């Protein structure tokens, strides 16, 4: 399964949108936080987990999804949200804590929820697993189409929720896919000190389902493997476990000094930045011309700017609205 030119263009552009979005968020996040870095200050307070470098996973998987399909994401959700088609303006506004945000400012960056495209998050490790299985079960019970994808990190694969949900999805043959973004780190803890196996795809054997490991953060391969898994799920053949080697180009969250990284690791990662790599291949294979790619990038940048402007200009959440929307 190879992506069409249109799909490749969408994949590249979406990766760029995510990257530009986070680059701007990164800058604005630091506003008001100097000379002393205090998370509580500035237009974007709180924790900020960037997904720079992990964009290929989001686009390779979401290229196969439509708004009816379901995603559950984590504390690091921007790339997945953008690839799933979450409203960029409202998402930006949410991250700024504005009344016009997806949740009116109640959720913030770790709780991106967009019912229109069936996108939900949890900041608790691996806790998107159960809800993804449940959405898949709901489709099965209702005889409605749609698959559910749970994105988690490689660290999350050591949580009980991962195990319970994979077994549930397998024994009930649910249209669900678990995609593990293996960025080699869970905050400061390296995969090999936390996980008893080198690659989590071997854990598929514990559930009698297919498992795949994808090396090299490669958008084409991710597209292919995810496509097969999603087609399998849509055909009623049950869940698949996919782990993807990817790179966390930023710290765990902003403010992370990354003292735990072996020297030089970061430089090596920057050299493998998937966005220039994809551009190079697209141009090299002659699929796209440089001006075509420039145009896609320019559109992406504009969409991001519009979103940020929307967020900046929106009214603050009303303090007393904190007391509303607890119950539907």
């Amino acid at each position, binding site marked *: 399964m190879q992506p069409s030119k249109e799909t490749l263009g969408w994949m590249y552009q979406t990766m760029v949108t995510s990257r530009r979005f986070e680059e701007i968020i990164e800058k604005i996040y630091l506003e008001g936080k100097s000379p002393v870095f205090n998370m509580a200050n500035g237009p974007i307070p709180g924790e900020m987990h960037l997904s720079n470098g992990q964009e290929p996973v989001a686009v390779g998987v979401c290229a196969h999804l439509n708004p009816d399909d379901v995603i559950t994401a984590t504390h690091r959700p921007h790339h997945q949200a953008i690839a799933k088609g979450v409203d960029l303006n409202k998402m930006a506004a949410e991250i700024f804590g504005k009344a016009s945000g997806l949740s009116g400012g109640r959720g913030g960056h770790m709780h991106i929820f967009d019912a229109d495209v069936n996108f939900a998050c949890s900041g608790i490790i691996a806790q998107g697993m*159960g809800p993804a299985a449940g959405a898949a079960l709901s489709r099965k019970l209702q005889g409605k189409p749609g698959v559910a994808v749970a994105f988690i990190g490689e660290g999350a694969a050591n949580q009980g929720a991962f195990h319970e949900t994979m077994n549930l999805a397998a024994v009930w043959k649910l249209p669900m896919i678990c995609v593990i973004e293996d960025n080699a780190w869970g905050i400061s803890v390296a995969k090999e000190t936390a996980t008893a196996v080198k690659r989590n795809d071997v854990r598929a054997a514990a559930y009698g389902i297919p498992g795949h490991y994808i090396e090299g953060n490669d958008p084409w391969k991710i597209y292919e493997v995810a496509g097969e898994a999603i087609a399998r799920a849509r055909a009623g053949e049950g869940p698949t476990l996919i782990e993807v080697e990817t790179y966390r180009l930023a710290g765990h969250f902003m403010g992370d000094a990354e003292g735990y990284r072996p020297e030089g690791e970061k430089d090596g990662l920057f050299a493998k930045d998937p966005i220039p790599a994809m551009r190079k291949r697209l141009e090299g294979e002659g699929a796209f011309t440089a001006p075509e790619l420039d145009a896609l990038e320019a559109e992406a940048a504009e969409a991001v700017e519009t979103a940020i402007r929307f967020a900046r200009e929106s009214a603050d959440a009303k303090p007393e609205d904190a007391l509303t929307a607890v119950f539907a």
Partner: protein
Amino acid sequence: MENERKLTIARAMAESIAQEMRIDPTVFVMGEDIADLGGVFGNTRGLADEFGKERIRDTPISETGFIGAAVGAAQDGMRPVVELMFVDFFGVCFDAIYNLMAKNTYFSGGNFKVPMVLMTSTGGGYSDAGQHSQCLYGSFAHLPGMKVVSPSNAYDAKGLMTAAIRDNNPVIYMFHKGLQGMGWLGTEAGANVHVPEEAYEVEIGKAAIVREGSDVTIVSIAMGVHHALKAAKALEADGISAEVVDLRSLVPLDRETVRASVRKTGRLIVVDEDYHSYGVSGEIIATVCEADDLTLKAPPRRIAYPDVPIPFARVMEQYCLPNAEKVVAAAREICRSAVTA
């Protein structure tokens, strides 16, 4: 009564679920041993026969997995009724309950609804020891985003279940094992009352005055209501008139009904099978004492489970549990002024 149709709480719960399942295809049930076995506590008996094992779905012993799944299904348009077999097991799955189920509506600014019922058994008294006998009312009621109900009789059991299934929010439905009407758990006869055949709702968040009185208000929930009613009867002989408030819901809490009763009686006793400290009994006392327009004639009292794990040995457990005698003693003590007056 001629047309009386006395049901156990277990049957009343199952009847409500069945009626809702007949009219609403999005309602389904998940849990351990709920299909062939009909639920360890009988509250799903007969449902698998009528609705089949897709909609009455036995699960693996994976509470985090299937309660999390219920959240996802509820967000996707279903109305799951899920069973956590004993409330004591909440520790293996509480994140799915309190961080997902209870908060996703808020996190999404109301864009996701989580209409689900989590039913779970509570209570001891039959020597099931410290991991199978707790009430944990306070543990659930303390955390925002979920409604919490617990019936003391079959009429409320059916009406609260129907209201819970129809509610667009997550509802924790706690049923006390000692009231289920399962013979093997003992039976509190007072719980088996007339239950209308047709579907009806008991409003969540509304307490009931189950006995009127003028000298002391006894506030409780579930099993404690029966202790209170027995105590009230015994107190009559002493010339003490006790009013009994059945909270029925802990969240929302009907503070006004409690305060109105205590305004009338001037005295308060709380009966709570949950642990003494930082729980229901403290909250009810505070609710009354912080009211500006309320003066107590005597200090409030609470008969709660002491702050110790629940022991196995019958004599030990019974020593710790609330009962009518303890309520009577407390009432006599704080009503002394009333009686001499």
